[in-house]
C-alpha cells in the first residue's frame, strides 16, 4: 500500500524550532537549507511576480506598500507544491491579489492586505460560487485550499 504525503509548505519548517540539542539544531538547520534550496526557484518566481505588480501599482491612487507585498509573499510561500503559482495583480484599494483560472470558466481569487486579512471568492458554475474571509496564520487556510483545488480540477 502506498500513500501520498504532500510536501509540507516550507514556512512551517522555518517557524517551528523544536531542536533541543546541538546535533538536533544542526539537523534542523540542514533540513531548512534543503527545503529552501528545493523551493528557491518557485520563491524567486513568486517574488518576481509580486515585484512586477507592486511596480505597476505605483501609477494607481492606492499603490501596494512593502508590508502588503511581504504578507502576500508569505501567503504564496505557504501554497502546497502541487498548486501552481497564481497570477499576481493588485486591487484599487492597495491590496495584492492572487488569481487562478481553471477549466470551464472556473476562477478563484484572494486579496491580501498588510495585516494578513484574506478576502477570497471562487466561481465554479453559474449556480455555484463561494466567498469569505480568512486570516493568514501558519498554513494556507483549509477552506481556501479546498476551493482552490475545486477550481483547478
Amino acid at each position: 500500500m502506498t500513500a501520498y504525503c504532500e510536501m509540507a509548505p516550507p514556512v512551517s519548517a522555518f517557524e517551528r524550532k523544536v531542536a533541543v540539542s546541538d546535533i538536533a539544531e544542526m539537523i534542523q538547520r540542514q533540513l531548512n537549507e534543503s527545503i529552501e534550496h528545493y523551493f528557491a526557484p518557485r520563491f524567486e518566481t513568486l517574488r518576481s511576480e509580486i515585484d512586477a505588480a507592486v511596480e505597476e501599482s505605483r501609477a494607481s491612487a492606492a499603490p501596494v506598500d512593502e508590508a502588503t507585498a511581504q504578507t502576500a509573499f508569505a501567503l504564496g510561500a505557504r501554497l502546497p507544491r502541487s498548486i501552481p503559482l497564481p497570477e499576481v495583480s493588485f486591487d484599487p484599494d492597495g491590496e495584492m491579489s492572487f488569481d487562478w483560472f481553471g477549466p470551464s470558466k472556473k476562477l478563484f481569487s484572494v486579496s491580501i492586505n498588510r495585516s494578513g486579512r484574506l478576502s477570497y471568492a471562487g466561481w465554479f458554475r453559474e449556480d455555484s460560487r463561494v466567498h469569505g474571509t480568512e486570516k493568514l496564520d501558519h498554513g494556507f487556510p483549509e477552506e481556501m485550499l479546498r476551493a482552490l483545488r475545486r477550481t483547478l480540477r
Partner: protein
Amino acid sequence: MAFLKKCFALFAERFAKPPATSPSAEIEYSLLCRYIFQNSHFSKINNRVKPGAFLPSTHEQSVSAAWIDGLSNQEIWGIGDILGALRRVPASPRARADFNSEVLPNVSLTIEPDPKPHPRHVNLSGWPVEKDAQKDIAQVLCNSSALQVR
C-alpha cells in the same frame, strides 16, 4: 385613396421618431464595456479578465463603464482614450471587457448615467462594502465578459 392613406401613414411614422444622435431615455442600450488600464488586470495566457479590473475604488464605491452599442472598434477605443486622459495618471486602455447589461441585476448593481466625461459614460453602483462580496460580483462580471486586447 387607400394608396394615399398608406403614404400619409408612412410619412407620419417617419417624422414622429426623434433622431438618434446621442444617448437618451428613448434609446435602449444593452452593451457595456469596462476599460482596463493595467496589464496585470487581464490574463493574456488564459485570455480572460481578472476580478481586479472590476473592483470599485475605496472612495467612489462605483465602477466606470461605457455604452458601446452600434460603435466601431475604433470609436470604442476612442472613448477609452478620452476617459483615460482624465485619470489621476493619464493612460490609454490596454484592453477592455465587453459585457451585456442584463448581468447587472443578477448581482444587484445599477447603472447611473454620468455623461460629464462622455455622453456614453456610466457608473455601475450598488457595490457591497465587504471585500469578499465585491470579489464575488467582480468574478461574475469577469465570466460574463469578452476580453478585447488592444
